[in-house]
């Protein structure tokens, strides 16, 4: 069994106004990996590359150890895919979708699909266009979860969904993860969901992978040093990952909070960073391009 469910090596992809060059990423099997980054950083591009929805100029992508171009069908058969704007035909209903898609997947279970539709409260006969955006996302999730996929690949699966549903979904994923052959890679802007459930966090920005780290590192080892401007001087530069200044002082994101503590002494506030903090402090300025 592969220890990495997904390996991306030297991928190059460019759109007008956006370039992803020489990207490498490894996603471990049996874990939940959260993909975070500002809009337009390339999260959607990565997901679409894995599913061969878009072409690439260079690089290889192995999923379950198989090249995703040479074994396109076999790879996709073991992936449960959720795209942030589910694009099913508008006039189909959940029942038709199940009947039309079931035969594509060896692991498809009509019974599990019906149970998921019930659990998510999705009307079986209602046309897709008549469903609310949240309900459309839930339908996409039900389909992705119904064929016992080995990798759940989800781009913003919880956009617009409420807290209760998000929590139930994450519990559902956790249950799936008890089988260590399964893996989850999902990008989201609601980082609070990831703090509790993701084992690894990958930050992508302007088409580059900034880091891939265990969530516990970010939570326990990293820190946000808050103090007067001179506190920066006391920190050693390579440890500082991002700085923001405000009217009352500076804030420095450091990768080693205990080291920073020894450098700065007791008086300085060193907080535990939330994922939002990491994102905000590591993003240079406000460059918001169309989401890719």
């Amino acid at each position, binding site marked *: 069994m592969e220890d990495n469910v997904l390996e991306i090596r030297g991928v190059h992809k460019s759109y007008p106004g956006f370039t992803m060059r020489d990207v490498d990423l490894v996603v471990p099997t049996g874990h939940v990996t959260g993909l975070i980054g500002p809009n337009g950083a390339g999260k959607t591009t990565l997901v*679409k590359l894995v599913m061969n*929805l878009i072409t690439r100029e260079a690089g290889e992508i192995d999923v379950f150890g198989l090249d995703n171009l040479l074994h396109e069908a076999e790879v*996709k058969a073991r992936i449960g895919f959720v*795209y942030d704007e589910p694009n*099913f035909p508008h006039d189909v209903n959940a029942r038709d979708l199940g009947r039309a898609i079931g035969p594509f997947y060896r692991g498809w279970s009509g019974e599990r699909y019906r149970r998921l539709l019930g659990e998510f409260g999705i009307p079986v006969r209602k046309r897709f266009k008549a469903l609310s955006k949240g309900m459309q996302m839930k339908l996409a999730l039900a389909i992705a979860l119904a064929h016992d996929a080995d990798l759940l690949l989800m781009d913003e699966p919880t956009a617009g969904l409420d807290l209760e549903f998000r929590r139930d979904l994450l519990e559902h994923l956790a249950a799936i993860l008890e089988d260590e052959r399964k893996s989850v890679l999902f990008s989201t802007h609601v980082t609070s969901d990831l703090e509790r459930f993701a084992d690894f966090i990958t930050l992508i920005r302007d088409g580059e992978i900034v880091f891939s780290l265990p969530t516990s590192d970010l939570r326990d080892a990293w820190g946000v040093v808050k103090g007067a401007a001179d506190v920066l001087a006391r920190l050693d530069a390579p440890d500082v990952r991002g700085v923001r200044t405000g009217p009352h002082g500076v804030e420095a994101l450091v990768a080693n909070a205990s080291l920073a503590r020894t450098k700065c002494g007791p008086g300085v506030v060193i907080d535990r960073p939330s994922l939002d903090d990491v994102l905000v402090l590591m993003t240079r300025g406000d460059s918001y391009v169309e989401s890719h």
Partner: protein
Amino acid sequence: MWNLIRKDLILGRWTLIVNGSMALLAPFILLIPDEPPPVILYVLYVGLMCTMLPVSLIAKEDKFSATAFTCSLPVTRDDIVTSRYLGGWFIAGGWMAAVLALGLLAPAVRDLWSNGAGGALLGGLTMLGLTIAIVIPFTIRFGMNGLLFGLVGLQVLGMVLFIGALATGGLDGIERAVKSVIDAVGSYHERVGPAGFAVTVIFGVALLNWVSWKASRRIFRTRDL
């Protein structure tokens, strides 16, 4: 592959039913004028209606940009293209045969077939083959809107040429060219006889579809969904 066609049939069944029923009306519409039309016209009309079926499916998928969803299914991109061709032939051809067969139940329609049946069928098949061979690569490359603009563009071009020819007196030049093509086909038909001619046409349509299928696969491989 067949799953893809089956998916289109299930998900697109309402569109197919609506368009399909229009093809069923063909025999009745044609019999309204007191003097029955030549069978080729009847077959071409039914053929045209039937080719609308696969085209409407492709249009629907294009409109909802559902191709990305199709491509996320465990199929290769080539499968998707191939399923459009096979699906096109299977749906359009199958329904056309059904409608023509049903038409035979009505005696008035049966009489139509008394003369020129072979030519009519050949004409129908050719139209089917041409439409599929053109529509699929065009929509893959330019999308449905692209196709419509293309068709409109062709007509405009035709008019411009026609007017240009009129103005420059070259009209009879064009007329002669067209006549000579028709004569050549006619003499070829004479030489090889109806059967030989039919084989040639069918071979030509098949070749055209094969080339179109190859081109579509190459185009689709480079498209970002």
